[in-house]
């Protein structure tokens, strides 16, 4: 893992001291809320429905046990004993007191973490593949490039006041586990026929009220020009992105309105200019960063056999572990989606347990996934049973990864000031309706995603089944979408028709799954069947 140098640490410490002073001045009445609000948002401190909410950045979703333990301790010390892992690989605390915020940031800084740029119209925390450095199908480890992106984007003065917020994802596998094409910029590290590595730039994707899949803008940018190309992409956006209408201010609108070809032409022009300026970090810096991401000291000659005589354990291994590049090892995903639970929530004790497991069994590494789960990336297969037993005792052995019970849901109207409807109760009812794990497995891979408003933090556009909560004259109403996807086969869901109340949407989801079961052919996932047979059979069954 990357470790702060003295420059990184000094920047973060200075920001904590600065914010402490700002909070003191606000509490003393020396500055108004209008003056203070942009300052607190610069430090990830929002005011939500019930209290202040602090959003903490987890760079490219990667943590060590010391950091994870700190997240648990903060939940106990300053919040109400739990945290919420988000769809952007961050964590949010829902019950923060303003006077405590500087101390929390100081505690975070002590473990090389912060909440900078988790709000505002700037470049947000870069996200990545939760299996980076571990996946058997990985081409290039994206983490050094993600870290370079973190350093480049942090406090970048030119991009501190963009037309709108800006989200970047980077991956290094053919399998897209980061919803890359639905970001403002998605970077895929690829290899050409000559065996050289390059960056494929997808620009202008996004969800929200105008969902769009990003087109390829740069097909093969040399990695040592990645930052210059990013500068070019951002500069064109910063110059022409709309600032008159926040609903049309994201880069996707610019790319759509002027067209991908024209946007690409302008980026190329700017890129050629930037290359003459020598803005690219020196190659030695990337090499220095790569040194932090050397392969852990894996043991060799380990067996791949696992004793699967315990059926519950066997189920979990089958559903929640993935192939590791190193024989004898596996990638473990801990589902934070218990039946009837709140997607993404974990208690302080659970957070600390996962930290301990990472320290003892995963080379001190954890990852947060955009699906609101936690990954132990490097686990000996021989340790899996012991880990599973500890997870099971803590309510964390939910064997439902990528099944209908593994629901993504935003905080919704239970917590969020922007939401129009509650997301979590709908997730809980669907989770309970499909509680039987045998039934979930019978349905196979089925990604269900729920947002409580059009901002789409719950990624409803990309759900095989998506649910969007809306406000209909003060009453919660839920629209159903089918056919979305976020991976290599990225697609946007289509609304089935009129919306439903809370119980009605659960029934509608079940009806859609029944249509799938009746219509599927061998090996088809829900989304495959939908693509083959279209909306009509689903609509007929749902609306009669």
């Amino acid at each position, binding site marked *: 893992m990357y470790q702060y140098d003295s420059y990184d640490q000094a920047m973060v410490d200075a920001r904590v001291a600065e914010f402490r002073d700002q909070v003191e001045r606000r509490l003393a009445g020396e500055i108004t809320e209008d003056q203070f609000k942009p300052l607190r948002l610069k430090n990830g401190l929002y005011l939500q*429905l019930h*209290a202040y909410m602090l959003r903490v950045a987890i760079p490219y979703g990667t943590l060590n046990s010391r950091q994870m333990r700190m997240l648990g301790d903060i939940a106990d010390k300053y919040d109400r004993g739990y945290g919420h892992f988000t769809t952007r690989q961050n964590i949010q605390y829902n019950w923060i007191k303003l006077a405590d915020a500087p101390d929390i940031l100081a505690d975070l800084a002590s473990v090389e973490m912060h909440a900078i740029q988790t709000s505002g119209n700037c470049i947000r925390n870069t996200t990545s593949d939760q299996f980076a450095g571990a996946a058997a199908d990985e081409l290039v480890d994206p983490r050094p490039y993600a870290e370079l992106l973190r350093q480049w984007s942090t406090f970048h003065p030119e991009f501190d006041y963009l037309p709108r917020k800006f989200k970047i994802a980077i991956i290094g596998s053919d399998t897209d586990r980061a919803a890359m094409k639905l970001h403002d910029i998605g970077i895929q590290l690829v290899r050409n026929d000559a065996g050289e590595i390059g960056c494929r730039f997808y620009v202008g994707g996004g969800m929200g009220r105008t969902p769009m899949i990003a087109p390829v803008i740069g097909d093969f940018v040399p990695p040592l020009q990645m930052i210059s190309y990013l500068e070019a992409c951002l500069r064109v956006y910063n110059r022409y992105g709309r600032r008159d209408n926040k609903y049309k201010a994201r880069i996707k609108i610019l790319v759509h309105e002027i067209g991908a070809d024209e946007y690409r032409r302008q980026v190329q022009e700017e890129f050629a200019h930037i290359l003459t300026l020598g803005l690219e970090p020196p190659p030695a810096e990337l090499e220095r960063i790569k040194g932090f991401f050397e392969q852990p000291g894996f043991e060799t000659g380990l067996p791949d056999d696992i004793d699967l005589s315990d059926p519950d354990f066997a189920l979990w291994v089958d559903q929640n572990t993935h192939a590791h590049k190193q024989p004898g090892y596996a990638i473990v995903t801990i589902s934070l989606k218990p039946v009837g639970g709140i997607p993404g929530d974990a208690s302080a004790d659970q957070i600390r347990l996962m930290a301990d497991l990472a320290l003892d069994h995963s080379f001190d590494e954890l990852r947060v996934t955009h699906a609101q789960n936690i990954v132990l990336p490097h686990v000996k297969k021989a340790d899996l049973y012991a880990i599973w037993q500890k997870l099971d005792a803590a309510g964390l052995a939910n064997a439902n990864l990528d099944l209908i019970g593994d629901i993504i849901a935003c905080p919704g109207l239970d*917590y969020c000031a922007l939401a129009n409807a509650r997301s979590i*109760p709908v997730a809980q009812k669907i989770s309970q309706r499909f509680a039987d794990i045998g039934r979930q497995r019978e349905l196979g891979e089925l990604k269900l995603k729920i947002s409580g408003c059009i901002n789409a933090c719950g990624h409803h556009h990309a759900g095989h089944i998506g649910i969007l909560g809306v406000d209909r004259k*003060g009453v919660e109403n839920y629209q159903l979408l089918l056919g979305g996807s976020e991976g290599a086969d990225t697609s946007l869901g289509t609304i089935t028709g009129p919306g439903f109340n809370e119980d009605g949407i659960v029934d509608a989801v079940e009806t859609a799954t029944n249509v799938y079961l009746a219509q599927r052919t061998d090996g088809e996932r829900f989304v495959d069947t939908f693509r083959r047979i279209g909306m009509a059979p689903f609509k007929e069954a749902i609306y009669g």
Partner: protein
Amino acid sequence: MKIITGNDLRTGDVIWWTGQGWSRLVDDAVEVGDDADAIIARENARQIVTDTQVIDAERSAEGVRPAHIKDRIRALGPTVRMDLSLKPADPEAAKWVI
């Protein structure tokens, strides 16, 4: 009726204007009528409350009920964690929101 709500600057707690000060209980909220703007201006100047706003509500024998579901959730707490709400001992309290 028109009532005023905001958040305690220091804690972030949801609070309601009682006529004399601020309460965490929505049932303590009072009708502010045409005085809303003056009250908000005065209270904002005291720098102890933030995000003040006037909302619609109804008073009945059961108490004060904000007109919009968002404000009812603010008044009670998250419906999915009643243990963290203002009525942790009442398992039916979330029904008041809906």
